[in-house]
């Protein structure tokens, strides 16, 4: 009936269990590289925020706290749908797996949509460094650094999310063809780990970029 017996393992492994463990550990090691990758950006941000606290605070007033907050909720929700998808795959619930994967994709697209909206606002307000940047507040040089870091950090994050959506789509196609089940669900689990990591990056990005001086 349900054909999820891709229990044949790759030739370099002894059995499917070893393959699953290798795939999982492989993703974790890759995520370690991502911690350092994004971490270096957080360092740049930390150094300059320490150097120019007032400029960063006033520049952050151009950020939309509500849109950012909605996006954070969207990603947190998508982490929930991902872990439910993994659970479904693990328990052979084919339809549920597909549903949760599609929900994850939708939530990811919502995030990117809102992000695109925010970017378009910045373009309209001439707050894109290098593209006719016009900042009216104090310390425009420092503010420009804030916006450079904003675009680079959220841009790279968005790129990672886009890749994640691609991966989830590929998983959804496979799920619709019964590829995943209790004896072979490593790709779902491993992709889930990646997605959660992208969520964690945003969990830190949001307060650091949007919530500097909101009470003013």
């Amino acid at each position, binding site marked *: 009936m349900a054909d999820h017996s891709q229990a044949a393992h790759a030739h370099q*492994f002894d059995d499917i269990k070893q393959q699953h463990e290798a795939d999982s550990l492989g993703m974790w090691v890759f995520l370690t590289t991502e911690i350092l990758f994004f971490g270096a950006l957080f360092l*740049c941000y930390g150094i300059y925020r320490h150097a120019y606290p007032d400029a960063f605070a006033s520049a952050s007033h151009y950020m939309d706290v509500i849109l950012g907050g909605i996006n954070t909720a969207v990603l947190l929700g998508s982490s929930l749908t991902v872990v439910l998808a993994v659970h479904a795959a693990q328990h052979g619930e084919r339809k549920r797996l597909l549903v949760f994967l599609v929900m994850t994709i939708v939530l990811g697209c919502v995030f990117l949509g809102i992000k695109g909206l925010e970017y378009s606002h910045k373009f309209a307000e001439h707050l894109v460094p*290098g593209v006719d940047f016009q900042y009216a507040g104090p310390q425009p040089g420092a503010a420009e*650094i804030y916006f450079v870091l904003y675009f680079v950090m959220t841009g790279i994050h968005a790129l990672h999310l886009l890749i994640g959506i691609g991966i989830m789509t590929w998983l959804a196609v496979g799920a619709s063809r019964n590829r995943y089940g209790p004896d072979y669900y490593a790709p779902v689990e491993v992709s889930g780990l990646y997605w959660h990591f992208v969520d964690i990056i945003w969990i830190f990005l949001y307060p650091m970029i949007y919530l500097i001086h909101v009470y003013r």
Partner: protein
Amino acid sequence: MKMEQNVDYLNVAYGPRSWLLSTDHKRIAILYMISITFFFFVGGFFALLMRLELLTPQGDLVAAHTYNELFSMHGITMIFFFLIPSIPAVLGNFLVPLMIGARDLAFPKLNLLSWYLYIIGGIFTLTAMITGGVDTGWTFYTPLSTAYSTTNVIPVVTGIFILGFSSILTGVNFIITIHKMRAPGLTWFRLPLFIWAQYATSIIIVLATPVIAITLLLLIVERVFGVGIFNPALGGDPLLFQHLFWFYSHPAVYIMVLPSMGVVSELITCFARKRIFGYYFMAAAIMAIAALGFLVWGHHMFVSGQSVYASMVFSALSYFVAVPSAIKVFNWLATLYKGSISFHTPLLYAFGFIGLFTIGGLTGLFLAALAVDVHVTDTYFVVAHFHYIMVGGAVMGYLGGIHYWWPKITGRLYPEGWAKFSALVLFVGFNLTFFPQFILGYLGMPRRYHVYPPEFQVLNVLSTAGATILGIGYLIPFTYLIWSLRRGKHAGPNPWNATGLEWTTSSPPPQHNFDKTPIVTEGPYAYPPFEKTEVVHGGS
């Protein structure tokens, strides 16, 4: 007696597709070997031009800006496209599965991808260097690289960025393979030290490379959009670039030297026919070098404006990192002591490594002292120091390993006479090239200059003479190793009578490495004690 034609990984399939689409770690290792050899000679060509210019005190061969491009491209090519991949991508790729009794690495397709990323990065950078060059030094300091240089910075940096991913994939592959695919009975403390070295190197790769990747990306953003993350005129701090750059580039030197140390342990034990002295300390020292190597990067920035307090911290930490390296040198010597030594070529390279790495390491300690560094930084003293480590250390280890495992990789023996001769030529050439540079640097000759005061000419001429000998010395193995592929004597499975799982399978190995997964019951380097061999010599 004619040897029958066994099926091995080389003759199992022919044709370019079987090589360019192979996921066999042994074939990928060969692809890497050919590619890095090409880049080695490209980098060497840049060096040759530099040394020719430095024959005379005046700038008469090339203009100043051309010289800037030459030393930049020499450094970029040698570091990123030769040294960083060298032992891991060639010897590591070939040997890690064999030494642990596995059929392949954990992720063979990612392995092939890593080679393609290397090639794409290499083509990007090489094309950019040929069509316009880059003059920022391999260190790409800002704001020269971001705001003032008019050379091909962006494509060169893009190529290195791509190469970073190649490196990361190799590192990830080795870590998972060593954790998860060891043969039954092969516990961590039964692993050959070469594997420990590859593991530690892979940890460094995984932790350090992402930082330089993002740094180079920020460099490109700054250059393209004219913003000032690292530009003081626009509110940025060039020192932030340097911190990020050296956070990778100092551990990178351990990426380059640790695998070589792993090779040396294999060579010394085999050709002294003795267990390694202090195996646990050797393994611990490897891990300590990897860890401590991350804590010292500020010693490259003592005179750039880094605070005195941070400099003092980095200086003190730099002294610590020398300790595990010294432990390794002492233990190699202790292994040789009272060993049954046979002076085959690989051992000659191991000797070269020990001596030259010791000099390089000691001079590193001199540089770690703030008061000394203030005087000799940015002089030829530093140039000599790192060449003693990179060439005298890393390259010697690479060549020793290539010779040692050549029979396993190709099924052929190299000609021992020529090999010994060229090892000697290389040793002489190397010292003639770089020892005068210690003196030049101490006397005050700055690096990265194509002109110098006339009183330095004699030492420069000696150095160029040495470089010529060194260049010839590299061509000799290049020639006889290729010659041996067709005309070398056929090798048996274990021509050196060495221990290690790689020697238990045929030379060259079959595609799947082992006919039956080996079961390991003892530690590495289990050479019989010498007393016993006397008894065996009865003659049966």
